[in-house]
């Protein structure tokens, strides 16, 4: 039995050493990358100056055309991330402030995201490689139920989110494989795909959202002008009163849900196509700038 105990001890030691070495390797790769995604692009940056920064989910990423802002002489970048919740938008803004980004205006897409304070695993995972290198990130995640495992067990976060930050993504990052996420100043145009042109958001209920409150606080502290907007949806939506309910809680959020009408402007019910996005962006520029 003693020999077996030694064998098991060797195996456990091997596992621990591998976890530590792999964790260090993966983290080093992610610390030296900046061109595969918006999170690492911000994390590995130094101070930047923007006239306009756009934050939010895919309804920011697909709806705001930075090029149109640029034509007005406004240096702009669309940091909207498909699938992101306000949890991630708040964290990204914190990182920008930490890096002394000089931002005149933050446009925040704040509509469907108001109904939950949960993290979006697909996007939140992108911050995890830096959890030991950023107090901002570790504090932001400290309230999550699996924080202890993510923080204290080496390499655990890479295993738990292997599809997002695991071997394949690490390899692509290490080899500098490009993506198109940062193209078009962060804007991702959608085609005339005409996906599902109906939606039912009756189950969504807006709440006083702590991450939206955080974003407001960050903007106040750093003198960023905050413009929070609700962006358009197609006409065939059940539960459209969600937007009014959101306005009741947060009257300062501009309800632009119906400024673009006509299904030919939409790629799917919740996302405008490029034509719709340009029309919408022109309206936003006209109204706020």
């Amino acid at each position: 039995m003693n020999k077996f105990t030694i064998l098991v001890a060797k195996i456990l030691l091997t596992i621990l050493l591998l976890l530590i070495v792999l964790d260090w390797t993966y983290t080093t790769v992610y610390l030296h990358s900046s061109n595969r995604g918006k999170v690492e692009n911000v994390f590995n940056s130094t101070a930047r100056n923007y006239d306009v920064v756009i934050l939010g989910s895919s309804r920011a990423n697909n709806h705001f055309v930075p090029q149109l802002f640029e034509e007005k002489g406004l240096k702009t970048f669309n940091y909207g991330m498909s699938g992101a919740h306000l949890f991630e938008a708040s964290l990204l803004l914190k990182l920008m402030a930490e890096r002394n980004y000089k931002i005149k205006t933050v446009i925040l897409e704040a509509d469907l995201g108001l109904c939950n304070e949960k993290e979006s695993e697909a996007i939140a995972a992108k911050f995890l490689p830096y959890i030991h290198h950023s107090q901002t990130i570790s504090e932001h995640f400290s309230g999550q139920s699996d924080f202890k495992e993510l923080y204290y067990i080496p390499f655990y976060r890479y295993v738990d989110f292997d599809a997002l930050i695991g071997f394949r993504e690490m390899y692509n990052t290490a080899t500098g494989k490009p993506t198109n996420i940062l193209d078009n100043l962060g804007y991702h145009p959608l085609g005339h795909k005409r996906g599902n042109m109906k939606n039912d958001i009756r189950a969504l209920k807006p709440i006083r959202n702590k991450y939206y409150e955080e974003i407001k606080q960050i903007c106040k502290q750093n003198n960023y002008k905050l413009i929070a907007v609700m962006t358009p949806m197609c006409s065939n939506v059940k539960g459209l009163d969600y937007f009014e309910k959101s306005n009741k809680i947060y009257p300062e959020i501009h309800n632009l849900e119906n400024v673009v009408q006509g299904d030919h402007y939409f790629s799917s019910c919740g996302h405008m196509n490029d034509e719709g996005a340009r029309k919408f962006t022109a309206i936003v520029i006209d109204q706020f700038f």
Partner: protein
Amino acid sequence: MFFNSLTFAVFLPIVFLLYWLVFSKTKSAQNAFLVVVSYYFYSCWDWRFLFLLLFSTLICYFTGIQIEKSERRKTRKFWFWLSIIANLGFLAIFKYYNFFAFSFSEALNNIGLQTSPLLLNVILPVGISFYTFHGLSYVIDIYYKRINSEKNVIDYALFVSYFPLLVAGPIERATHLLPQVKVKRTFDFEKAREGVYQIIWGLVKKVVIADTCATYANAIFDNYTSMNSLSLILGAVYFAFQIYGDFSGYSDMALGMSKLFGLDLLKNFNYPYFSRDIAEFWRRWHISLSSWFRDYLYIPLGGSRGSKLKQVRNVFIIFVVSGFWHGANWTFLAWGFINALYFLPSLLLGTNRNNMETAELHWDFNSIKVFFSMLATFSITCLAWIFFRANTIHIAFDYIGKIFNNGIFTSQFLSNQRYSSEFLLMVLAFVMVEWNSRFKIEPISGKYSGLKMALCILAIIALGTYSDYKEFIYFQF
């Protein structure tokens, strides 16, 4: 509690330590402890089915004794059939009732008689197909006076419910496992080390190969209408390795775990994808099930004795029943039927007992023939797996039709955010490792075992798929 879960990683060492440090004084203590642990393990799936497991165990235990005690043939037969009907009855109700009710109703609807089936709202108990077959083989062996009945209820309960094999096999025989549980086990370092290596290799097969192949196979099968010929072929190949890695990986872990407790289980897989013909494939794939059907169905039907027609009938019955054992769906029946068709030529030509030894390749022309026969056998196996994986027979035929009609062989981007040919290199590397270790139980033991073990652990940690796919396929049977 899956074998590849953190919960099990805590459970197993605790059981191991208690077994050898606290309960190893007598075989009774060892067996009683393992029975309690096994029942706890099963209760983690669904505690309600513990009663079913207990009932199945007691029925076979009791009827086994009665069969042996009875002097009159009629009485023996009575207890025998009582046991068979009770066990198969539970299996039929939980697994097959809804299938038959629905199929019967559909058949009536097709001839104009509108009916709606009376379906049962039941969950399929995990492992029912496996522990039912344990009990059946025990009772049948007693009836045919091959073994004596087990008088110790704890020993018998352990035979049925032993946790490494409880939910997905291998399907043990009383003649193999019962003699082992009847003696006190003493710790054997070499066996335990072999067991650890086998567990690690089983984990590589499960989380690195099977679960990763699953993401590709699912992406292709679930969107097969938009896939080209190459992707569809790769889908079948990925599924072939998914089911092999999943099931043989589980079996490896079960066998490895048992070695930690001083028990040997039946080998369940013997590198089946290196088979040179379909008969050899079925001597190497899910060995415990195919030998069970051979001994308890095929041979009683006459086996390979009698006329050719009878032999053909027996072969078709075995394969179709084997297919049906896997699940209550026409696709499994079709899969069994197709394998019977594959087997038929070798049966009729009398070549089904060729290739009894393990394949070897050398730098000669004969090896080219061997290589291509392995490739051909693998290919037709993959074709049959399409029926196993598809949701309906129509989809299976449509899938196969598209392979031949599409004609485009470029790598496609899939819904799992990968290109369809991306994982092929890893699969080939796995095949090379398996080929080099086909005369061994697992590839880790022997020279440089420390390094090989470290590489396997590295693969499990860095290359395993954890976030997308977890469940063992054969748990659904």
